[in-house]
């Protein structure tokens, strides 16, 4: 087997490593207060990382043909899990998102978003929308994604559902959908957001907090804006060089979810703009290498899969960073690879593995082409 784009592995592992360090830094105090064990979160995350490395290794060697064939099955499984959450999920923070498996809890949303990308790539290869028009080409996958998003929304988890829709939409765009056709899902999406806000009070509160902040700059620092306020204090007080690794203060129960959704704020507080810039560079580099794989792939399935996975990771990162910096309403989205969390890390490392695998396949195909055309290939 040829060598693939090793940057993908290196950058993913770099982000995971940053994650381990920051999870320990941001979470040790809370772990101590909650479990009397400051290493609790670190230990959990190390176990998941080890598991994730295994998943990554498997995905980096997977047979793409078989993966393609398994796509519908994966989707079926994901739908079943998401359905189960609705029926028997575990409640936390006002939403039911977890499945308790005795030894661990699982967020089926992560499996769902991964399966959705896989299935969409499978579907769009078989029914190229560029040739089929709106109703036969664009509508079926759109409805499917919408249905899946609806299941996630039922938890309720607006942000993940929204990101899934945007990921699907971007994949349709990558698959060559006509631009005027794409206006329809945009309109539909706007309508869905409006309905969701009207029916879920907690979302509306957050959005109102957000709008108040963006328009007036003020925050209800004790109520709904508490978390964002604490996050901004963390980021802002970090300054150019930060307080030093481990020297953050905001993780001392000021900033809730410091080790998960708001880990970026702690990075900014402890490592300053220097560290933030480095983190942004690593993320950007990873996205670039991922999209490069998508662009080079000859096969529509692998291209769309690589594009979908990369876009999905990018969207999660952007959404997470936007929430932490106050540019988006507060929601619970993890920063890929970095945030504490099991299912997300496993799925993200699987994605990194797959991206690497596709880059290997691209290399093989290009080598084959070169051989065939006698070195005339550019």
């Amino acid at each position, binding site marked *: 087997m040829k060598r693939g784009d090793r940057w993908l592995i290196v950058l993913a592992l770099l982000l995971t490593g940053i994650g381990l360090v920051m999870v320990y830094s941001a979470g040790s105090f809370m772990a101590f207060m909650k479990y009397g064990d400051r290493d609790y979160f670190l230990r959990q995350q190390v176990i998941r990382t080890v598991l994730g490395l295994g998943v990554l290794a498997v995905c980096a060697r997977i047979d793409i043909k078989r993966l393609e064939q398994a796509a519908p099955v994966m989707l079926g499984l994901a739908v079943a899990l998401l359905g189960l959450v609705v029926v028997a999920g575990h409640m936390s923070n006002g939403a039911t998102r977890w499945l308790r498996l005795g030894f661990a809890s699982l967020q089926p949303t992560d499996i769902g978003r991964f399966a959705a990308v896989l299935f969409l790539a499978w579907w769009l290869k078989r029914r190229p929308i560029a040739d089929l028009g709106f109703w036969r080409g664009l509508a079926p996958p759109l409805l499917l994604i919408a249905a899946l998003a609806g299941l996630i929304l039922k938890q309720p988890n607006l942000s993940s559902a929204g990101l899934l829709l945007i990921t699907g939409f971007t994949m349709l765009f990558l698959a*060559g959908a006509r631009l005027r056709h794409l206006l329809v899902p945009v309109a539909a999406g706007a309508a869905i957001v409006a309905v969701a806000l009207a029916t879920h009070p907690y979302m509306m509160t957050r959005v109102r907090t957000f709008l108040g902040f963006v328009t007036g700059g003020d925050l209800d620092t004790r109520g709904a804006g508490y978390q964002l306020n604490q996050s901004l204090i963390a980021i802002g007080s970090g300054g150019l060089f930060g307080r030093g690794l481990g020297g953050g203060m905001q993780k001392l129960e000021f900033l809730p979810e410091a080790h998960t959704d708001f880990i970026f704020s702690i990075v900014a507080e402890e490592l300053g*703009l220097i560290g933030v810039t480095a983190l942004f560079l690593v993320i950007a580099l990873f*996205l670039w290498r991922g999209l490069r794989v998508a662009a080079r792939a000859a096969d529509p399935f692998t291209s769309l899969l690589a594009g979908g996975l990369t876009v999905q990771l990018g969207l999660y990162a952007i959404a997470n960073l936007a929430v932490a910096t106050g540019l988006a309403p507060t929601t619970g989205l993890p920063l890929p690879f970095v945030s504490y969390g099991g299912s997300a890390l496993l799925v993200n490392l699987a994605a990194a593995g797959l991206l690497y695998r596709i880059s290997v396949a691209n290399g093989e195909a290009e080598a084959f082409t070169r051989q065939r055309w006698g070195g005339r290939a550019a």
Partner: protein
Amino acid sequence: MAHKEMRKSRVLVVAAGLFLALLMLWSRTAWLQTARHSHYLARAQENQQVRKKVLPRRGELRDRNGRVLARDMRVSHVAVYRPQLRDAAEAARALAPLLGIDVRVLRKRLVQSRGYQWIRRDLAPEIGARVRALRIEGVAVEDETRRQYPLGEATLELLGRTNRDNVGVDGLEYQFDHELGGQTGWVTLVPTGRSSVQLLLPGAERRAARDGATLQLTIDAELQQIVEHHLARAVDSLDAVRGFATFIDPYTGEILASACYPHLPAGKSKNWNFTDQYEPGSTFKVVTAGAILEERLAKLSEYFTASKHGRVEIVPGCFIKDSHGRDGYTFFDAMVQSSNIVLGKLGVRLGADRLHRYATSLGFGSLTGLEYPGEASGRLRPVSAWQARSTPTIAIGHEMSVTPLQLALAYGAIANGGVLMEPQLMRELRAADGRVIRRWTPQPSHRVFQEQTTATLSTMLSAVVDSGTATATRVAGMHVAGKTGTAQKFDPRTRSYVQPLLAPLLFNAAARA
């Protein structure tokens, strides 16, 4: 291949979108971390820091022999916060033996308590620690410092007292509050966001509390107690309004004891020896006599006529009478028998200027410089304000006022061969780390009389005790000299001198003999 080309361009569009979003987020973060840095740093500080006071230990007051006169004592108070107390009965069972309260009584009090209430105050700190170790929710232990005075009320008027916050409010506690109080330290603690835990982080800013300095006095605690005891007996048996006594070492000016009786409550008490002024009366005659001797204006044997009955007009308009009249006295006898008429005449012979000069030279009319709050200066008007009758009147100790301390120092000068000493109440101020901040040593002020003069005065004053007006103060085996005086105190109620106060003043030259 057309599909692949199209896909490539669309990937570029997506990439552009993602990178643009990242760039925007980076800019936002950079703005927060640079332009808004100081704003958020300030917010972070008010968020994350509480300053907690670390109380210093107030310095001790000691007597000249190192005996402790005042010290800080740690005490614990136990309080209950009813809303947090779950099981009053169980808390009562656990606390009762420690607090020394009957279980049933305590339970009743706990049940009936509302809000935050003291259960027992001023407990030993060990008991406070044991209560704290019980970790009963709703039961709080607060530590505090209390000032303790081992001699009790004795020395109250000298040392002063501190208030609830351990700040000196009168006496030496007030005068040296800054040094005794030390410096309150603080430490920045990090309150955690939601729980009530406060963390002391390794990098916490802190300022150590600096314990107060120890002040050693010239007072002899034992002597002070004896003086107070006898003063109290005297005041009680004579049914006097009040009494005071000061002992000084004439050769050093050190104050050995300074007592007042009755004791007034802290805050109202003052040391009358330093803060009150009286007409010295006959005790002041020693100044006139000393000046006459020093200026050689009369011999001891010189005879002066007096009057057996009634008054004598010394200068026009100024009538003076003796309490037990004789037709005349020698100078020496006039002092021993305390003749107002003769001393008034001597005053006139001396003249206003010289009288004023010697009085001033002995320290009358001005503060002695004793570092004691509220010291009075006494009153000695300038000669220009004197009338014709002032000279003989002042010569016998009227129309002026002095503090007991001034009088003691002036007599001390006679015992000390004519050299006036500065009064000294403190010996040493020593910081908690052992460094001496300030040391007081005996300071001679200046020479007032020649030694020959003081020797003569001593003889006169000894005669006062042996055969004169102060025979009651004789002490077997001791050489005592002194002078009595009947002071007059102006009573503001009746606006007249109605309350004669006996102020016997002794000076003990035994050590010299």
